[in-house]
């Protein structure tokens, strides 16, 4: 599902990061670990097409995304990759239902309310869909973040430090939910984190420190 080769990126003119080759199969769940500055977020952004590598290749779902143009990349990301950020980002002027449906529309697909309800039911947040983002708790927002990552039925979910601001119980609940739904929807999952609480839950590990 994700295959990278000789990935290198230069930034701020002189600094350079290079990454080990990855090969992640469909439906697998991986942890991406490493100290600060080892390029966890950078790697996720390379894999999602937000950044373009200086050299090397990235094949996601059979497509070499490093060869795509900027807006093609934006569309590819919207359709194929679900992103979960460290903090929960929403369009504050829209309610949660519209926050979910806007993600479908921006990906160029039709709004599938049935699927949205199916997702919110799974995540147990259906009764909150008419609220605005600021009216929700962190945990509730996180679940909506998962719902939005899944709303376009992507092949891959990339999560960047999703548990860093959660307490233990919320962290556990998140870990449960995310592996559950990813298994259920056959989604490949890659979580970049330095949170040890997740170590025991996901078997596959990429350690950026070992380079």
């Amino acid at each position, binding site marked *: 599902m994700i295959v990278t080769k000789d990935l290198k990126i230069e930034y701020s003119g002189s600094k350079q990061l290079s990454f080990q080759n990855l090969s992640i199969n469909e439906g697998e769940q991986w942890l991406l670990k490493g100290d600060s500055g080892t390029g966890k*977020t*950078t790697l996720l*952004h390379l894999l*999602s097409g*937000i*950044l373009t590598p200086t050299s090397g290749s990235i094949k996601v779902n059979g497509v070499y995304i490093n060869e795509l143009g*900027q*807006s093609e990349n*934006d*569309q590819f*990301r*919207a*359709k194929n990759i679900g*992103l979960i*950020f*460290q*903090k929960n*980002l*929403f*369009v*504050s*002027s*829209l309610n949660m239902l*519209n926050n979910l449906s*806007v*993600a479908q*529309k*921006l*990906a*160029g697909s039709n709004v599938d309310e049935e699927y949205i309800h199916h997702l919110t039911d799974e995540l147990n947040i259906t009764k909150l869909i008419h609220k605005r983002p600021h009216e929700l708790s962190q945990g509730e927002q996180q679940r909506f973040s998962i719902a939005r990552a899944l709303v376009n039925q992507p092949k891959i979910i990339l999560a*960047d430090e999703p548990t860093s601001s959660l307490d233990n119980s919320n962290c556990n609940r998140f870990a449960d939910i995310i592996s559950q739904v990813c298994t259920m929807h056959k989604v490949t999952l890659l979580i970049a984190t330095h949170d040890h609480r997740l170590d025991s839950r996901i078997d596959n590990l990429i350690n950026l420190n070992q380079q």
Partner: protein
Amino acid sequence: MELLKLAVAQLRAKPFNTFLSIVMFTIGMSIIGVLMHFEDSAEKRIEQDIAGIDLVVGAKGSPLQLILSSVFHADYPTGNLNLVDSEKVKKHPFVKKTIPIALGDNHKGYRIVGTTKDYANNYKAELQEGDWNKQVMEVVLGSKVAAQTGLKVGDNFTGVHGFMEHGHSHDQHPYLVTGVLKEKNSVVDRLILTQVESVWHVHGQCDHDHSGEHEHEHGEHCDHCAHHHETPAIDKVLEKVKNNEELSAEEMQLYNEHKGQLSERTYEANEQITSLLVFFKSPLAATTLPRMINQNTVMQAASPAIELNRLMSLLGAGFTTLRILAWLIIAFSAINLLVHMLNRLNQELYELALLRSLGVSRFKSLLLLLTQGGILALTGWGFSIITTRLMLVILSTLNTDLGISLNNALLKGEVYLLFYALAIGCLSALIPAVKAYNTNIHYLLNRL
């Protein structure tokens, strides 16, 4: 489409800022709109009042005054013309037709204009009721005159000398109303039309300059009244002359005056008019005829178009000042929009990063902000169209003399204003939009 919805949603999320931006745009554009309507209405009105008159011939004096008095009936006449002189103009080969104007009196401030049927025809005047004036001392009333004075067909009224409401009243010469004209939004609405002969009849045969003597006080006698008293005296003098008797100095003067009048009367009596409206047969006349009249006769010729241009260029300074003010307000509203959008972009930078990660391309994020600027300007324009019309309704009911014709159709200028507004809205959104376009979402998301 989705972009548009998103733009609207984001604007609605900050109702106060959005409202402020729209109000600023509305105020600036409303001022410009009202000015446009004023100018449009004034231009139409003037064009209608000039009604194809190529030249006005009158007594020497200020050309602007001649135009204002004879075409717009808004100023005092420059003096009188002898009919015999005006006949020469009428017979000139370049002249298609002429219409005489004889002023002198008013009724309750509305001018009694001695003229021919051609005058009414030239303004396409139509009868609302009654019939056209066929006899001397019969009049038709302009619509506004009828409405304001309450005169009806069959009523009698007397004229007051000059153009002020109060003054010497010609009580012994009542006019008869035979008709009332339809409202045409032209100068005719404010006039009382009669035959030139009626004006002569009221003023007897006296040849004094009526127009110049508008300030007649109550009790002061008009010259022709003096003539009446003189008649026996002049008869006595004439008797003496016949008998070759000696005349006193006073009698001599009387006799000379009388002789002078007689000699004038040998032309066309001493019939005078205030001015002559001239229509050219060929455009060539415009260059030759005025110069000929101004240089070779005691009359002056003035072109309504030229004089009005002169007047409008003077008034234009006021309009220009107001217009600059309005554009300044619009410029401020553009700056306000710029600051407002920059602030919001800074606050919602992460939202932009989110939208980009959800598949909004850089170009679309640029469009999103431009759309918002456009929507604000467009809404402001829409409101200004409404407020302009409201202001015009209020102004026209407050002051009916302004003669603002309520033109609810979109003026050409207002359509241009729409494009200006859109351009200004988009331009002021351009800086935030470019900022959004250049936003490095990797950097932003990394900082979360």
